[in-house]
């Protein structure tokens, strides 16, 4: 079950967006779901520059740029040992 400490453990949070976001035009329910497996497993990731870098090494600012093309903004990010979960606008 969720506890209140979950309210203060964000990896990233955009307070300004959170305060000003208006979703009045978000009329459509059904989502678009895109899943891309670049590799079958994290073990398969190569080391083209001598050290292993993964998708999680891409900084949040880059994801923000990519998501602009989707028309989504990043409200907050929670990270675990193996994944980063972004909560987005819309």
């Amino acid at each position, binding site marked *: 079950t*969720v506890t209140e400490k979950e309210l203060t453990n964000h990896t990233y*949070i955009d307070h300004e967006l959170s305060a000003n976001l208006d979703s009045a035009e978000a009329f459509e329910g059904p*989502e678009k779901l895109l899943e891309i497996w670049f590799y*079958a497993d994290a073990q398969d990731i190569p080391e083209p520059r001598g050290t292993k*870098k993964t998708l999680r090494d891409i900084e949040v600012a880059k994801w923000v740029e990519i*998501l602009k093309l989707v*028309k989504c903004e990043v409200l907050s990010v929670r990270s675990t040992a193996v994944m980063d*979960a*972004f909560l987005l606008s*819309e």
Partner: protein
Amino acid sequence: SSLFVYDHKITLKTCGTTTTLLCLQLLFDTINTELGWDVCKRIESTGKYFPYKVFYSRRCFMFPLKQRSIHKNWSNEVDYLNTFFSCGRSYLVGRNDESNHWNLYVTETNKSMVQKAKSEDPDETLEILMTGLDHERAKQFIRKRGLCEQQTAEKSEEDEGHMLGFNITKSTKLDLVYENNIKAAFHHDAFAFTPCGYSANMMLDEEYYYTLHVTPEKGWSYASFESNVPVAKISQGKQDNVQVLNHVLQVFQPNDFCVTFFTKDDLKESYSRYMQIGEQVPGYSRRDRIIYDLEDYQLLYMRFERSL
């Protein structure tokens, strides 16, 4: 909307009039630049990318003409995906003459990329897409702002949208969908939108997630639940996906819903249980059950309506 980033894969789920596929070129260019992955370079002979696997899916839209760009039309989305990926196939799942079918695009698995032996991977994805939410249930996802300002001020790191999202999660018991009998770590992030709506990401055992998105407006109310949590592992065999489905349905009580269940192994007990699901959803009648054999994945699609 939500984005989940693992070391080797991403899942992007977006609502409203988002333009999900328009990020593909920048996504591949960014990964190529930042990480130097060859998989993010176009193959010279085909001019396309061939990652391990790509899935793109959506239920048919309620207001397709309000969508933007290629997303107004499924065939345009497929054409666009085919300019990026080799060996893609598209499926229209459900009744072609109904307004609630489901669309899927999937690429052939690039088996040449598997370098190392894998441990048992319980890869499975459950998605429940619900429309016509019970009015009283839908009201739980409408929270007026300004009512918890003092509470918010006391937690200076937090803002009201996240605070209200947290409160909705607690009051609806959406944090209790899974019986966490192995005491796995649980992380949560939720947000209540203005004027209404709710999104939540829940992470279990560091590597699994379930995510919920709700638009409670009367006339086009909708809720989705998507999960890659291996229920048998988390509950130590005390719970199955049928119970998960019934828990979610209790929260929203929709008029109709469709369920998709992907799994890598059709012999799994959870898949077998799902095949027999029709009689185990109180108050609903199953209208469609469709099974696809998608190379190394099995897909089960079902659609239900509230019983008269």
